[in-house]
């Protein structure tokens, strides 16, 4: 298992803009951590189903309308909102 990777690509996938000095610092830390994960590759996992969730069942509530959260209480947390909506900068470029 290779432990070197393209940090710029991962940062792009994660939607995280790297800061000055991040590339070297994070790469070295991540490589160390990934190297410590090597032990997982040596385990005999034959016949072991992946355990993704500990719930015996996922419980869903009845599909009946309930009062929703108050829109104003949600929007108060947006850096920019207008008329009950989130407002963002223009995202469609004109040709």
């Amino acid at each position, binding site marked *: *298992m290779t432990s070197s*990777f393209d*940090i710029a690509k*991962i*940062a*792009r*996938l*994660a*939607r*995280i*803009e*790297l*800061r000055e000095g*991040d590339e070297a610092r*994070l790469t070295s*830390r*991540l490589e*160390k*951590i*990934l190297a*410590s*994960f090597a*032990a*997982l*590759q040596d*385990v005999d*996992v034959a016949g*072991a*189903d*992946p*355990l*993704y*969730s*500990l*719930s*015996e069942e*996922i*419980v*869903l*509530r009845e599909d009946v309308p309930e009062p929703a*959260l*108050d829109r104003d*209480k*949600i929007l*108060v*947390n*947006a*850096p*920019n909102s207008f008329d009950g909506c*989130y407002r*963002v*900068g*223009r*995202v469609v470029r004109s040709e």
Partner: protein
Amino acid sequence: MSWPMDFLRFSQCSEALKKKSVSSVELTRQSLARARDSQGKYNAYMAILEERALASAARADVRLKAGESFPLLGVPLAVKDLILVEGEKCTASSKILENFIAPYSATAISRLEAQGAVIVSKTALDEFGMGSSNENSAFGSVKNPVDATRAPGGSSGGSAAALAAGDVALALGTDTGGSVRQPAAFCGITGLKPTYGRVSRYGLMAFASSLDQIGPMARDAEGCAALMQAIAGFDIHDGTSSRAKTADYLQDLVTSRSSKSLQGLRVGIPKEIEGIALESEVAAELAALRAHLEKNGASLVSVSLPHFPLALPTYYVICTSEASSNLSRYNGIHTGRGASHGEELGLEGLYARARGEGFGNEVRLRILLGTYALSAGYYDAYYRRAAQVRRLIHKDFSLAYRSVDVLLTPTAPECAFALGSRTDDPLKMYASDLCTLPASLAGVPAISFPTNFTNPKLPVGMQLMAPWFAESRLLQIVDTLQRHGVGGVV
């Protein structure tokens, strides 16, 4: 009426309130004053909720006068700032949520407030719960009240510090890989991680959804039992919450006091602990506790959980993968300060800048790690494989519980380490959770409680793990030990 020492424990608060020797408003005022005083010393709080607290205390006094008798009625409580309390800020100790105001309350909070508990403060944490020392907060480290040059542990270090400072008798923490238990050990208090699914996660900001649990923290097992009584149980708003019947945690504890509850108890000692380098004081306390258990009629059984040593890589692959997905919701548009941006960034550029600016170092590191583990070409080798090893760890626990009632390990391999001593070495920092991670991965309940047989210079915590949903067993055993004087709680 003075607070010192009289109100460190839940039962002291509760009894005084019932006897009307103190009112909830008086108790709350003292708790608030102590919190303000200790904030300058330990930085344990994100917020002290004076107005809310005094209003709920006044309401509690009316209910007390009317003869209501919920155990928590009128008792001050600190809450980790990762749990939503409607109308109050909830920051996750992150810049990205610096001004976020909770639009609703977590189920655990609604239940506690319905029973009349008085929320006095929101406590600091490692950003989004990611850390073992509270040094990953965007708002400065929390200091350990036992020794302010040392870390209080993490990530619920603020809650543990609030208890250790004697500001409150009860606190809520959250535990993903040991975040209730390890700070409990470092600060000399008691903390329980419930079975996964036992306490609703609704209104708990998600870090790693298959592991996160809200857990009670207190001076003693009785305080933890009182909190569990209020917060445990099925919640339709959490699809992973369990319908299994809850125990009567407080009553179970009282009932067990009339029996010799350690007689015949089978305590498993995982032999894999031998492979972990324990600090000498921790090893000495473990040996002394083993002797104490045996002297009181418990039998010690050597057991093997062969995959125990793999818990660390397994946990870090799983928790970072889940975190990378959960934290994708913070994009600078729905919440946050907004990025310093111009339109030239485009929408994705705006997300990336808001996240790059808003998340701290450890959170960015873990999101990147999780993104990598889930990315095409690596998913099978990391995430899927870790989930398979998690299955093996889960099986180890099932097998072990066929021959023992509980498992015993230290909570952490060491006592509280010096602030700043591990921040440059994430692997060394992660190693502090070696003993707590297996129970998190298996989803079993586990409790940390202080011991002081050998007069250690700093608090030492021991961990007991029980089978799924056997929280009462853990609370009863620790209550019995604490009534023997173990850990200094009499």
